[in-house]
């Protein structure tokens, strides 16, 4: 049995951590970032099922490699298990989920309710997104809500947390203690406005940011230069979005069909020239990580390996960003192990007891 892990509540893994001065949440991710450690986050591919095991199995492959897991909110406007549901399951098992909230599907009444519900379940991190248009998804006939936008959503949750009030001004008895995040895309026009736009998000309440997939490092460097000049990196932890491309064909498809992802020609050429494109895609991702981790102001990476989740551990390991540190890992508790040793047989023994037998043995 290992010694107790660093960021874990001794009374139970599902419980919030002790509050620390200067921290707004009681979660693991904020602790890692504020200690100055290079953070790694990833995204859980949400299941199209009502089986909790699907979520646990998908989370398990990240064990010991990531500091937090994004629970996506119907990404690409496709229906999946809700982010609130995924967070409920993950917090029970002690994981640190980042609850994504998209403005596309819920109005301000539903969102504020979900923020309270999420925080009550132990969700310490929330990521405020605008959300893709409904046209992009599997149900283009849905009503696009967009009651708030990512900026006003950030501000709404910040007001709930810091002022203890709903948007309407009604008081909360216990405000949600959350670490607030936003998304940023340095790779879409208007390029010169993007760093300033990030400043606006900081003013609205963002404490950390995850970027869109970075495949163009020089472009990201110019963005970071401007962000540093504006002083953003001192006020916000910026996690660079990275991910492996499965093949040159996928890369081309993404480039022409997924708005907001910028893939330069050089990347596609490199993939096309490779023997094993999948392996090259992974290597490319590692190379990009090695470049971006050296950029001042980058506080971590966000690995998005959609349908290639099994590579996340390898990518994190081979790029060496953790520098030997092991993020929190789910372990079997000692008492659970004892129970399992003593009573495991009842799961495997084939005893069929009839009521008649039970009466006989009772005498």
């Amino acid at each position, binding site marked *: 049995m290992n010694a107790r892990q660093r960021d874990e509540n001794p009374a139970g893994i599902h419980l919030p951590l002790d509050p620390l001065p200067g921290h707004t949440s009681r979660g693991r991710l904020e602790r890692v970032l504020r200690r100055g450690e290079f953070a790694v986050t990833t995204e859980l*591919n949400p299941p199209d099922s009502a089986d909790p095991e699907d979520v646990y*199995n*998908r989370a398990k*492959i990240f064990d010991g490699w990531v500091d937090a897991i994004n629970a996506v909110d119907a990404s*690409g406007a*496709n229906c999946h298990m809700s982010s609130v549901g995924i967070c409920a399951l993950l917090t029970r098992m002690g994981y640190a989920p980042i609850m994504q909230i998209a*403005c*596309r599907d819920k109005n*301000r009444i539903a969102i504020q309710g979900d923020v309270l519900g999420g925080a009550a379940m132990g969700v310490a991190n929330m990521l405020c997104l*605008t*959300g*893709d*248009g409904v*046209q*992009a*998804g*599997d*149900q*283009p006939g849905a009503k*696009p809500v*967009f*009651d*708030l*936008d*990512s*900026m*006003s959503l950030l*501000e*709404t949750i910040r007001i709930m947390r810091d002022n203890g009030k709903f*948007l309407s001004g009604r008081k909360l008895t216990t405000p949600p203690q959350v670490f607030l995040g936003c*998304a*940023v*895309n340095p790779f*879409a*026009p*208007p390029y*010169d*406005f993007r760093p*300033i*736009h990030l*400043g*606006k998000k900081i*003013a*609205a309440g963002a404490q950390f940011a995850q970027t*869109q997939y970075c495949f163009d490092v020089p472009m990201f460097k110019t963005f970071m230069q401007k962000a540093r000049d504006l002083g953003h990196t001192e006020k916000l932890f910026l996690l660079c979005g990275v991910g492996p491309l*499965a093949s040159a064909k*996928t890369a081309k498809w993404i480039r022409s*069909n997924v*708005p*907001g992802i*910028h893939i330069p020609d050089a990347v596609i050429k490199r993939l096309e020239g490779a023997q094993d494109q999948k392996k090259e895609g992974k290597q490319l991702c590692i190379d990009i990580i090695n470049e971006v981790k050296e950029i001042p102001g980058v506080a971590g990476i966000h690995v998005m390996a959609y*349908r290639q*989740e*099994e590579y996340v551990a390898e990518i994190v390991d081979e790029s060496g960003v953790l520098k030997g540190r092991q993020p929190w890992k789910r372990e079997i508790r000692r008492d659970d192990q004892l129970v399992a040793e003593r009573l495991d047989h009842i799961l495997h023994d084939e005893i069929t007891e009839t009521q008649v037998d039970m009466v006989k043995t009772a005498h």
Partner: protein
Amino acid sequence: MSEKQPAVTQATLVKKAAPKSDYKPADVSPQRRVQRTFAVRLWSIRHSRLLEWFYSRFADVFLLLHPLWKGIGYSRVEAPVKFVEKRVKGFMFDCRMCGQCVLSSTGMSCPMNCPKQLRNGPCGGVRANGNCEVEPDMPCVWVKAWEGSRNMVHGDKILTVQKPVDQSLRETSAWLRVTAQAAAARETNQNPGASA
């Protein structure tokens, strides 16, 4: 996790399953369907500085007329003013009558024309050519807003974080509301004791 990557996405399947017909109105969002062309809207953004100047004169005139509005009654004057405002702003900016105009903070580009109705800046889906993610042939409202704001004297107003839209103010006159608020502010400034 280890399932094979599908060749087609769910969205493609849905689109393919849609009934086949020559009449295809669903190719654009309802928002886009209301208007035909962006020419006038884009002209307004190119001339944002002129319009900014004009707008501030115009607001002064409206404020001067405050006694008149008050005399007739703001509620009674609402209908005719709204009639004019809707048509003028509709022509110039493709106004959606949200009732809380922020044109001066958004480079004279009406943010309600954004399919996501973003009032605080562009989303992450802007195409490389500066067009909208949802409407591929429409220039992104926020790319244009940023361009327009750079021409304006008070263009940095684009940096203020806007509150969420108050849906209860839809289809009301923003001109009259701003005038009434400015008049009220002027009165409290002139005799601060009276309001206390």
